[in-house]
């Protein structure tokens, strides 16, 4: 018997810890990324079995080529007006981010998170789906609210925790809640929203409704158990939900290899659950639109969930509390092979004769004006510490009705 026999390895065991291709001071290196050219990835029928389309989890769906032409079977053939609305919403999202980032530097708020480089994702998906469909976002889908015309001033009021904050000064800046815009309340706890989205979709199916759910999670948070639970439930109950993984390469300072993204793709994780997977150029507005449309049709026709990996790059620091120059090459975003989502859609619109430099300059100016006007309005109500909701509201909505403890404690505060 072997019970006392010790085993010898050919060499001592060693622990593998993945490392990114570049650190501060290194030249950015994306040579390990395999990128399909635009237009080459097939578009399966919406009813395809996950097994039959599993190769798509390792490909990259792209529509816009280097010349700005929309090519291939995934071209959603959007009308120019929709494209212009998308571009303007992305421009507005970036202008909003820039102003709020500055507002933090000026001490007007405690915290902010930009979505630079990822604007195409939330904007396209926010435009495509209905406000009746519930979105379960992370803290980096502000483009969804902006694309749906949520008042910028309300976003700012939330960021300033002022007297007009729709969620009454209770939440960290950017943790919006906007039910009427199909935007679920953001939680600081990563991953929790994904199985909740599945439950929401199960409820819609249970009621025989026609609404679907859509959720987002970052590459880093896919390592949370909630992601596994969500995929299991989505598969078991064929929930009408779109499960997005926004792979922006970075989870604060950890590169996506630490989340398991080097050994396989995040899209491929769907395969083991029997779910269809699409892997998409997240900086290509048209590809994001087309893939989401495919998943939407699948969900609405009772064929269940789809996982979409949106391959992109987190251009900005993780948050206003982060300094990426301490863990990645400073110019990595500039060298990102999939470019910038705004510039790529701008190029496409220009190539098809529906946009020009003059219109672009005007759109940028208009966005800045819009943000400035909202900023003036919000700041007139007050920035952080200058204005806030009544302290009484601190005790409200813990429960549907205040219990005796809260009444007593509120009186202790003197309100």
């Amino acid at each position, binding site marked *: 018997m072997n019970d006392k026999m010790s085993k010898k390895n050919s060499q001592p065991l060693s622990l593998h810890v993945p490392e990114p291709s570049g650190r501060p001071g290194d030249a950015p290196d994306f040579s390990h990324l395999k990128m399909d050219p635009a237009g080459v990835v097939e578009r399966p029928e919406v009813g395809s079995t996950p097994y039959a389309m599993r190769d798509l989890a390792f490909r990259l769906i792209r529509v816009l080529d280097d010349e700005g032409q929309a090519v291939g079977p995934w071209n959603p053939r959007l009308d120019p007006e929709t494209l212009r609305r998308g571009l303007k919403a992305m421009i507005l999202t970036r202008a909003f981010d820039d102003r709020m980032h500055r507002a933090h530097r000026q001490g007007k708020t405690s915290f902010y998170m930009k979505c630079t480089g990822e604007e195409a994702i939330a904007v396209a998906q926010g435009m495509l789906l209905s406000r009746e469909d519930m979105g379960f976002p992370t803290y980096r889908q502000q483009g969804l609210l902006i694309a749906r015309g949520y008042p910028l001033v309300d976003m700012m009021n939330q960021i300033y925790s002022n007297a007009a904050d729709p969620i009454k000064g209770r939440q960290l800046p950017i943790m919006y809640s906007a039910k009427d815009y199909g935007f679920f309340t953001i939680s600081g706890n990563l991953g929790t929203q994904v199985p909740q989205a599945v439950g929401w979709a199960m409820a819609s199916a249970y009621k025989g409704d026609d609404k679907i759910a859509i959720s987002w999670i970052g590459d880093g948070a896919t390592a949370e158990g*909630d992601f596994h639970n969500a995929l299991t439930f989505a598969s078991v109950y064929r929930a009408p939900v779109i499960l997005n993984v926004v792979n922006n390469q970075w989870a604060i300072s950890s590169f996506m290899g630490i989340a398991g993204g080097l050994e396989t793709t995040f899209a491929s994780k769907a395969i083991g659950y029997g779910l269809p997977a699409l892997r998409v150029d997240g900086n290509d507005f048209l590809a994001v639109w087309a893939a989401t449309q495919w998943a939407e049709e699948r969900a609405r026709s009772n064929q269940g969930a789809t996982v979409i990996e949106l391959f992109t790059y987190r251009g900005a620091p993780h948050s206003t509390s982060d300094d990426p120059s301490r863990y990645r090459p400073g110019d990595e975003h500039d060298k990102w092979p999939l470019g910038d989502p705004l510039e790529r859609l701008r190029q496409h619109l220009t190539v098809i004769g529906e946009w020009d430099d003059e219109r672009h300059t005007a759109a940028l100016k208009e966005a800045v004006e819009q943000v400035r006007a909202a900023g003036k309005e919000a700041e007139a109500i007050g920035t952080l510490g200058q204005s806030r909701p009544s302290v009484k509201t601190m005790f409200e909505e813990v429960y549907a009705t205040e219990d005796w403890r809260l009444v007593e404690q509120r009186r202790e505060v003197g309100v």
Partner: protein
Amino acid sequence: MSETFSQADRNDGVEPDMVDQNAAPASQASGAGVVPMNMIQALNSAIDVKMAEDANVLSFGEDAGYFGGVFRVTDKLQQKHGLTRSFDAPISECGIVAAAIGMGAYGLRPVVEIQFADYIYPAYDQIVSEAAKMRYRSGGQFTSPIVVRSPYGGGIFGGQTHSQSPESLFTHIAGLKVVIPSNPYDAKGLLTAAIEDDDPVVFFEPKRLYNGPFDGWHEKPVSPWKTQDLAQVPTAKYVEPIGKARVMREGNDVTILAYGTMVWVALAGAEHAGVDAEVIDLRTLVPLDIETIEASVKKTGRCVIVHEAPKTSGFGGELSALVQERCFYHLEAPVARVTGWDTPYPHAFEWEYFPGPQRVAYALNAVMSGGR
């Protein structure tokens, strides 16, 4: 896990014929009226009646569908109300509660089962960070009208992971309600209230009491529920209010605060000590019926708190602090706590761990003589 428990249950002398496990739930077997039910049947009736009344009520959990639950609480609900209203869930406590939260946000009223309270921890993040805070953090835009049911408590040779009483992990969380019934009548009325409540409710069911009251005299034969008045349960809907305690025994010498199985142990302990104790079944820990507690302790001048959970940072600590804060000038002795020990729940030492009537009687006598 269910096998482990069933084994323990049989070893502990719960007679299989006390409950006809194959009988239709009482609410379905009879028409309107009042019939004797055990706690399982009463809980089943609560869900059944709410499902019949409200299409937004649904029930799911591990083995909770076709099989009707390892304790039969959801027995025949699937057959009666359909596959999509009472169904089996993957072994994923986090997933079960998260799905319920999503459903609650949509507008449903899910009643989910965590097979044992000892296995609720994988769902803790969802309950604490999500369900509890949803109304607050969204400014009332989203709510979590969900019920998380879970068998809890010891006295059944369940060992470490089939005996725990984790209520204080939930009473500490703002936004949650915590309910623990001690008898079939309250079980149905409180579960009905929990389902109708617009806030998330953690509903712990003392599994030791499922088939009959248990007073902690473990060497004596166990009596069935049908001998108790509180097992006479209306088949129709009724609600017992959340936030109201029940005075189980009026007395003048000392107040005993208890809930779950310990209510019956407290009654037995008072009898054993020969002390005229007022026994209060708290029924809901959050919100707590402070008025009933305060009035009783001011009347008796003494207080003994009994729970199964370990002592340190247990709910008894909160109760003791509240009594001390509010009844200080009426107290004639230090507030005493009779609780589980600060150890994991052991298997072989069941009856040395479980706070039985003798320990309660000892505490009562000590309090009556002014000591501790």
